[in-house]
């Protein structure tokens, strides 16, 4: 029974990304490699951040402002990393296009580019879920569960799985939005992504309040929904534009 519960928590956190992986990513080896490398990049960023903050740990769990500082620096660092990832991706795109020309194959389609962005985002999201949620889930497979005082209505594992799911969604789709924003030079999208990321990070501070998770988690899902809607709208617009352009060129 407890094993079932553990698997359930894992699937809550990673189920959607798993289905995304199986249905979109796993068919194209290159996308798998993208997922792996972006996961590695995220891991490195986490290690760097923890290296920076190691000296100040453990923070006292009574005051919340050091944590807010921590979240702001970490999000800032990760957004910088996103820019770096974009630079690499630009180089890669050129190489791939040149390669496609050499093989007399079509260049990257718009959908290909979006899929690469999606894979990059998925890597970030999966890394987040694995390190923040899955790594703490090991006791959940054992014969007990665990509650924390501040959120006494739900088991700790369930809460962290739910939060991880919202962050996986945010990470995955914000990468698509960001890459699109960079390539179009769209300033709104370029700012939108870090802001949402930062706000989502700060919203988790609500969990410090007693029973704050009952407010914090819905707020987080609101952010995730916002990202999803924005991403869907943008993808729809790009695809219809693209189709229109293709038809007019024929």
């Amino acid at each position, binding site marked *: 029974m407890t094993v079932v519960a553990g698997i359930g928590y894992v699937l809550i956190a990673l189920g959607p990304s798993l289905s995304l992986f199986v249905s979109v990513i796993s*068919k194209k080896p290159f996308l798998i*490699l993208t997922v792996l490398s972006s996961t590695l990049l995220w891991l490195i960023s986490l290690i760097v951040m923890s290296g920076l903050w*190691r000296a100040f740990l453990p923070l006292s769990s009574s005051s919340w402002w050091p944590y807010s500082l921590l979240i702001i620096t970490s999000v800032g660092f990760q957004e910088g990393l996103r820019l770096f990832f974009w630079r690499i991706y630009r180089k890669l795109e050129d190489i791939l296009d040149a390669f496609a020309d050499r093989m007399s*194959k079509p*260049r990257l389609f718009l959908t290909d580019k979006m899929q690469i962005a999606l894979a990059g985002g998925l890597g970030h999201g999966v890394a987040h879920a*694995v390190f923040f949620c899955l*790594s703490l889930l090991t006791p959940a497979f054992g014969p007990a569960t665990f509650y*924390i005082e501040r959120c006494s209505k739900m088991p700790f594992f369930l809460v962290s799985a739910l939060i991880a799911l919202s962050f996986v969604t945010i990470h995955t789709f914000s990468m698509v939005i960001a890459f699109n924003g960079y390539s179009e030079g769209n300033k709104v999208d370029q700012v939108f992504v870090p802001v949402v990321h930062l706000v989502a990070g700060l919203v988790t501070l609500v*969990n410090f309040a007693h029973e704050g998770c009952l407010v914090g988690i819905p707020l987080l899902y609101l952010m995730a929904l916002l990202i999803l809607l924005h991403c869907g709208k943008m993808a729809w617009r790009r695809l219809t534009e693209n189709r229109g352009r293709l038809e007019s060129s024929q």
Partner: protein
Amino acid sequence: MESSILESIGVEIIGVMSPVSICMFLVVLLVYALSPANPFSTPSSPPIRTAANLVYLENPSDSTAQKLEGALLNALVFVVIIAVVTFVLVALYYFKFTNFLKNYTRFSAFFVLATMGGSIFLSIIQHFSIPVDAITCFLLLFNFTVVGVLSVFSGGIPIILRQFYMVSLGIIVAAWFTKLPEWTTWIVLVALAVYDLVAVLAPGGPLKLLVELASSRDEELPALVYEARPVAPPQNGGSHRTNMGLLAAGFSQPGSVEMQSVSGNSGWRNDVDGSRDTLGNDEGGSSRDGREEISPLVSNARQRRSSSSDSPEYSAVNVSTPNRVGHFGDRDSQIEETSPLVEAVHAGNQREQAAMEDDDADDNLGLNRGIRLGLGDFIFYSVLVGRAAMYDLMTVYACYLAIVSGLGCTLILLSVCRRALPALPISIALGVMFYFLTRLLMEPFVVGISTNLLMF
């Protein structure tokens, strides 16, 4: 819509990475499942003695300096034993005791599958209280072993089965190695990575000698190696050809990510050895071709035929194909001006030429044997991950990512260097580094944050 380029890049890399991932994953599961009530070494029973801890048996009460010294000695002895045995095997191969090597490897595979695998099965059965009687269990194990031995060394067996048994051999040996004491494991891993580097790259290194010997004799490498070949022959040669240029891939030269010797329990060795004489008779008729194409002689001949340059095969084909297509185009336009009848004739002609071109591509495919990875690499990657699994899931994931990215780097280097490369050093270095970084830096950070339900 034409297939996009994304689908064809990196097929080989994934072909190598997925079995490695499967192997690591199963070892981690095994370690997790068996560690609570570890039937091999319950705290009361004395720790096992293997070739890897001949000198020093780690004791939890020993001081750090003692542990370090003992682990270093252990690693030294282990590497020396491996080096000696590898030299002996190379000598045997040099004097053409190929049959002996082959049978010896069969015996080792039998031994690993039957005894080590058997004891692992037994402990699984005990742990999960699976109701099986002794006779059934023996029969199943015997069948498993016999099929394994056959599949590893003879033709006519589907490549997928071969790959399955390679992975299970890796899992079994790795599961045994995870029972080494902690310090010894880390030092032995690092020592092996260094040894691998020397043995493959230094002049006179045993593995380098072995590879050169095998390629000068036009023979397969006499070793247990995992071969990442497509299970089904790809439908169109074109897409397959694509893979090769970018992101590491096939090679016509004898290139393989190098194998690494493995030592088994108590001085008994299941080193990579023997001869791998099968090269897939599984693909029906085409496999014959494949085997013939492999000898460098034939490849040289074709190289001369298709292009005078001494560039690698794939680029030669790449260059020649567009030329030919362009040629068709020219002729097409000429003929269109004449008459439809001639055009029909020409179409036939064209088909013939296209067939020839396909043939060329097929030849190319036959040469492109895929990437080969020594079984030892599987084992030691899995040992590292299995050892990480005894600490935490976080370290497992970090080590997995590090190892896989190291493997990716090695494969990319392979496509640049086009020669046998050691697969252990980069991966092990990254894996060990990430393990300690994760354990020392990241864990307190992440646990401290996420137990407060903070994330970002």
